[in-house]
């Protein structure tokens, strides 16, 4: 339990203190804290998952002064995750209340779901942030770059965690 809390705090701190201050571009901000939602334990009830999504989103909003935006995106992400997980054969993992990660569900399943969720999250966030004056080329470019960066970091993080667990 404590290890999980420390892990969550570390990820959020890394997001807030490091990634949110990258100077690549004003818009290229990979949101890797969503790995916490993607890899939520499979034993958690749907109510808990939705609540966790909202809570983490609000926390992220507090640090970047965007009240409601990350919270809304996190809620959608959790709902989409529930939908994706319903299509995967992970009954055994759910019964064992394992985390949703490479080790428990395999590389392919994790890559598949994390890629979709990360892309969705970034496209949603940039859409909401620029709603009303969306420049499509800029929007697609920044969403794609941020998503690819985030996925790369998440996969590295998963690799490190996997090594640690092994």
């Amino acid at each position, binding site marked *: 339990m404590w290890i999980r809390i420390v892990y969550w705090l570390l990820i959020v701190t890394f997001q807030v203190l490091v990634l949110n201050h990258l100077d690549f571009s004003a818009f290229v901000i990979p949101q890797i804290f969503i790995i916490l939602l993607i890899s939520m334990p499979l034993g958690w*009830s*749907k*109510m808990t*998952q*939705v*609540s966790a999504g*909202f809570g983490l*989103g609000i926390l992220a*909003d507090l640090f970047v002064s*965007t*009240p*409601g*935006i990350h*919270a*809304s995106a996190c*809620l*959608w992400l*959790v*709902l989409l995750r*529930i939908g994706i997980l319903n299509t995967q054969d992970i009954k055994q993992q759910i019964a064992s209340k394992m985390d949703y990660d490479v080790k428990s569900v395999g590389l392919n399943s994790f890559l598949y779901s994390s890629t979709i969720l990360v892309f969705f999250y970034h496209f949603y966030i940039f859409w*909401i942030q620029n*709603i*009303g*004056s969306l420049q499509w080329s800029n929007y697609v470019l920044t969403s794609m770059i941020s998503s690819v960066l985030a996925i790369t970091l998440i996969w590295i993080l998963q690799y490190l965690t996997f090594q640690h667990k092994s």
Partner: protein
Amino acid sequence: MQRLLAFIEQNVHLILFVVLQAVCGFLMFYLNPYQQATFTHGAAGLTASTNQLTTNVTQYLDLKNQNIKLQDQVADQFRSSSLAAFHFLEDTLTIRDSNRVALFDIVPVQVVYNTANKGENIFVINKGSNHGIKRNMGVISPEGVAGIVLTTSARYSSVMSLLNLNLSLTPNINGTEYYMPIKWENKGVNILRLKGINKLEEIAIGDRVKTGSSTVLFPKGIHIGTITKLTTKPSSQYFDLEINTATDFRKLNYAYVVINKDINPIESLIGNVD
């Protein structure tokens, strides 16, 4: 009820999701200035579009009432306008008595039944003897002559359409009275015929045919139709005219009954009405 409860229990996370999204929506569009401005702008646009749609629908539904009001206005204009000012029915106010009191009055009516596919076509209007309408009164549409009142009941009247084998009118073409009757011969909807016009007469395709002064049912100058065809045989010295009616009888919805206010004294002088 149990099913409903089971459904709610099964999807309680969705209910929580919707509630929390509503909270997020509130936070997003209330506390973020940019999103708030966008939302306000979008909401204003949506409101304007909705209002426009509502107005369009309301106006469409009110068209019937507007038509009736317009008819009344046209009737009022007919009664009060001077000869020059009243272009709609052209020369209809030329017939006036010496005290410059209009000889004709009109009653706006709606057509509730109409045929154009028989030999003896009639249409029924929604006003009758209660409104002062009597047999043998002229009926005009906004475009021109439509028919003559045949019978009346208290609230309705039947009108012998111009597309009736029994109806004939004497025309005025280019200011000249012709005493050959214009008749509908059931050779096509909205097509009238006039036979026996001398070839020496200055008549051409496109000339307008109007009512003349040889009838007391219509004011002089009401449009009957337009000449569309002139036919003749080499050995003949007469034209046969084909005239397209001014009134499109397939689209006849509104009309006016023409009341000659001095029909009785005039009739008593001329003996009979055509």
